[in-house]
Structures are given as structure tokens and as C-alpha cells.
């Protein structure tokens, strides 16, 4: 068990290190190393490493961990393995708001904040629609999330068609997910929301474990089911919204990483949450390194790389194992 966790931590370290050595400007590994050990040097290499690559790798690890945790929390709460962090409309709401903001000519620095606020508002509205007797109705939540997402998707399409090439590209880039030009400032402004989400998640984990057995059993052993539902929803939404504000719509991480994490660590919420965070923090920096280096000098959208890497891996995992139908791992 300890070997598995050490391997996961080592994987995150490796992925982040690889991320530091890859980039748009060609730097020799030795230069990168020297820059890493001399952060205050005035060389170009030091500037590139410390103002571009380090924040970018940290941002990627952050986005990966946040989305993977958001996904595993929602899948656990709804006891549905097909749920992803954007189910609650976080990304669709943010996407629509950003598309409209771009169309009316909002300033670029405002975009992440608008996305974050709109994402949270959409999730709140979805939760409001899914309310029943104080608690959340799982089916209503899924239906409300899916239908509102479709509506907001249509708004995005409409805006894109009206904007045409040029200004529409800003919206498209955001929809495809990217970590290009994200610095410490963006990281620092989104981190607090994710931390609050993480605290909510940590508080809900023991209850979430009991909820694996269904709501009747959970109630019978003393779980406050309604409180747990709101806590987990708040945690998943804050984590997803923070990730969306930083990197746009980065797909597949929140759906796929939880499955792999449960295979490795089991469905105990303590283990699956930790393993998801580590796997996500390894996968996204790796994918981002590929996105930066595969088609230089341009970047491939992060969401596209993740789809190309993630989906075949996912399918392989499930067709390879004899019990492929079991989506709950171990």
C-alpha cells in the first residue's frame, strides 16, 4: 500500500519535472537545471523557467487535482460512474457567460472572474432545481445539469456563429482548455476557492464513505444525508469552477481519473479522493507538456490532448480486464 502511494507521489514529481523541461522556447536541460537552482539569476533561462514554466506546471497540477477530486466526489455522491465535474453546469454556464462577455467586448483580465462567477451561479441554479424536501434528488440533479448545459452550449454556438473568425477564437481557445500564459497571479486568485472546496470535501469524506451503502443505511448509521449532499456539491463545484477559471474547459480528467484512482486505491472515499488528486496532478502537467511540444511553435489545445490520451487509456483499462462491466473498480 505504501509502495503504491509513494509511486503516485513520484509520478506527480516526474510529470511536473517533465513539464519544466518542455516549452515553446528551446532551452537545454542544463540551462533549465541551472535556472532552477538560481531563481534570482538574470538570464533569459531563469526568467522563462520561473515566470513561465513553473507557474504553468503548478497550474496544470492544480487543475488536474481539482478536476479529478471534483469528479470523484460527484461520482461518489450520485453513485453514478458516468458523472463528471461539469455535470452541474459549471463549465457550460461559464462558457456561455464568457462567450457573451467576449461578444460585448469585455476586457480580457475580467474573463476568468466572469467564468468563475457564472459557473458557480449555474451550479447553484441546478442545485436549486434538484432540491426536494431539503435534500437533493439525484435524478433531478442530472437532468437539470444536462439540460441547462445543453441550453448554454446552444448560447455559445450562437455567439460563435455571430462572432465569426477573429473574436470567436478567444472563446474557442477557452472552450478547448489551455494553460498558455497563466502566471502566478491567476493561480493565486483561483487557489483560495479550491482550498475552501477541499475543506468541504475533507469534512464530507467520512459521510461519503457511508453513503456508498445507500441513503437509508447512511441515515441509519447517523449520517446527515442532506448536509453531506450540500457539502459535496459545494466542494465539487468550487473545485471545478476554480479549475475552469484558471484553464477553461479541460475535459476528461474529471471523468477518467476517478476510475483509474478507484482501480488503484479502492472505493473508500479517503483513498479514492487522495489517489484522484495525485493522478490528476500528474496527468494534466504531462498532457500540457505534450500540448506544448507536439506541434511547435503552436500549441495543441489541452482538452484535445487529454481526449486523445485519456479516452484510449480508459477504454483499454476496461476492455483488458475480465470484469470490464464493473465500473466501481477493485
Amino acid at each position, binding site marked *: 500500500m505504501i509502495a503504491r502511494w509513494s509511486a503516485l507521489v513520484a509520478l506527480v514529481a516526474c510529470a511536473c519535472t517533465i513539464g519544466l523541461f518542455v516549452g515553446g522556447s528551446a532551452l537545454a536541460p542544463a540551462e533549465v537545471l541551472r535556472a532552477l537552482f538560481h531563481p534570482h539569476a538574470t538570464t533569459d533561462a531563469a526568467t522563462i523557467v520561473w515566470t513561465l514554466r513553473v507557474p504553468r506546471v503548478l497550474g496544470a497540477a492544480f487543475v488536474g487535482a481539482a478536476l479529478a477530486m471534483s469528479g470523484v466526489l460527484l461520482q461518489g455522491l450520485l453513485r453514478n460512474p458516468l458523472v463528471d465535474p461539469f455535470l452541474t453546469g459549471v463549465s457550460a454556464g461559464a462558457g456561455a457567460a464568457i462567450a457573451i462577455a467576449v461578444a460585448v467586448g469585455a476586457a480580457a483580465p475580467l474573463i476568468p472572474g466572469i467564468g468563475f462567477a457564472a459557473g458557480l451561479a449555474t451550479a447553484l441554479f441546478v442545485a436549486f432545481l434538484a432540491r426536494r424536501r431539503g435534500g437533493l434528488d439525484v435524478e433531478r440533479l442530472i437532468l437539470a445539469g444536462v439540460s441547462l448545459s445543453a441550453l448554454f452550449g446552444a448560447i455559445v454556438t450562437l455567439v460563435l456563429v455571430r462572432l465569426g473568425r477573429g473574436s470567436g477564437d478567444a472563446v474557442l481557445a477557452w472552450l478547448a482548455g489551455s494553460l498558455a500564459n497563466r502566471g502566478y497571479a491567476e493561480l493565486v486568485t483561483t487557489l483560495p476557492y479550491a482550498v475552501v472546496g477541499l475543506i468541504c470535501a475533507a*469534512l464530507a469524506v*467520512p459521510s461519503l*464513505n457511508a453513503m*456508498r*451503502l445507500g441513503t437509508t*443505511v447512511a441515515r441509519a*448509521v447517523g449520517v446527515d444525508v442532506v448536509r453531506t449532499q450540500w457539502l459535496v456539491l459545494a466542494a465539487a463545484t468550487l473545485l471545478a469552477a476554480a479549475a475552469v477559471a484558471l484553464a477553461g474547459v479541460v475535459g476528461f480528467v474529471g471523468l477518467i481519473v476517478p476510475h483509474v484512482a478507484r482501480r488503484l486505491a479502492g472505493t473508500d472515499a479517503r483513498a479514492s479522493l487522495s489517489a484522484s488528486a495525485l493522478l490528476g496532478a500528474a496527468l494534466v502537467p504531462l498532457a500540457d507538456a505534450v500540448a506544448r511540444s507536439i506541434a511547435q511553435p503552436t500549441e495543441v489545445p489541452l482538452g484535445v490532448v487529454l481526449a486523445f490520451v485519456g479516452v484510449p487509456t480508459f477504454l483499454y483499462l476496461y476492455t483488458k480486464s475480465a470484469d470490464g462491466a464493473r465500473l*466501481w*473498480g477493485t
Partner: protein
Amino acid sequence: MRIAIGARTLLENFDLDVLPGELIAIVGPNGVGKSTLLRAIAGFDAVASGDIAIDGIAVRALSGRDRARAVALATGDGEHAYGASVRDVVAAGRFSYRAGWDWSESDDDRRATLAALERAELDRLADRRFESLSSGERQRVWLALALAQDARVVLLDEPTAHLDPRYALDVLCLMRGIAHGATTAFVVLHDLNEAAMIADRVAVFGNGRLLAFAPPEIALDPEILENAYGVAFDRVVVDGAVRVLPRGYRAASIPTGI
């Protein structure tokens, strides 16, 4: 006490006064409100009038955690435990013994979980996934969960449903063992002879009322049962124990060629 769902009154004007260590069987026709009664005792739903108290303390007045330490409802509501092992399921019974944010299990929790597994003879299955168990084994898991919960009152909803006679006997024995000392058990049963076998007292519900609440040899009276179920019963004594049998249809009255 009155038990109701919405505006529909299920059971009315009854009073069950139960002693510590008793095993109470609840019997009655489908839909009479037996499961609703169990949920009310567990504090899940408010009763329409009257109240449910343990040692004089109303169950509904307790917090979720205090309630779970007082009453255990040992019934799963699904086929799945989403990858949880048998040990995980039983360990969930210890939820109310630690703070909600506490990720770790105390030694007491581990001991209680282990003891419950052993008592339900599940120690060899502890690492198996819950989904891989047979229905008889699953019933034992729910019982072990209730044991780990260490509550004064244990509630069981048809624990012998779908079980073959051997598994049913296993579960009945385990249940009989739970109800002793300070622990009282209520069990909803459809098989009247299982009730006769293990219960200290049987509560017979029918037509929205409590028709009898007495030791099995008195409560399982053909007249009371006919009143409850609308079917005639015969009462026989086998080796000194009372058994009741629904009087079969006469062969001629069974329609043929449907």
C-alpha cells in the same frame, strides 16, 4: 400512537411497551404499515401522533448521531455497496462514534467491527466485495453492521426474505442472540412460524390496528390471524411448539386452464 403516510393513516391507536432484551416480531399483511413503523422507530419519519421513546427519551428529539447509537436499522436498500468490502460495510456502523470530519478509525471502532464480523461469522468474508455475496450472506452483513453500531434497539425488516431454510435459520439464530441484556430487537417477518420460533412477543397488525401483542402461542391465534390476513388458519402443535398454517384452498376451488 398513529402512523400515517401523508393523509393516509396506516396504523392507529396502539401502544407497544417493550422491555430490554425482548425480541418482538411484527407481522401483518402487505402494506399494513410494518416497514413504516420500523422507519418511525428508527426516527426517520415523524409519527402522526403519539411518540416513540427509548428509556423515556423521544427518538425524534435525538441528533442523527445519538439516534444511531440508540437505534440500528439493519436493512440495506440496494444490491450495491459500490465497491465496499464486507469490512467497510460493517465498519460504517461505527460512524456515529467519531466526529464527522474524522478520517481515522479508533482502536475501539476496529475492535467493535472485528467483533461484529466474528459474531456474524463473516470474518472469513471480510475482504470480499459486498456485491459478490449471496443474499444470505448479505443479510448477515446487515446484521453485523447493526451489531457494530452497538445500539439499544435493533430493527430488522424481513431479514429472512429470499433465504433458503438453512440461511434463514442462521439469520434467526443471530437475531435471537442480539436480543438479550439491554438490547431489544424488532423484526418484521412474513413467515408466522419463524415468528413463533424466535419471538418473545408477536405484534399482529391488520386493518389499521394492533390486533394482538402477546407471546406467540397467544398472539398467533387462528381467529386473530384470519382477521388480519383474511385467510383461514389452522394451528398445530409440533413437539410442544405452536405452528400456524394457512388453510389451503380446496383443490376444486383453484381455477384451472388459465
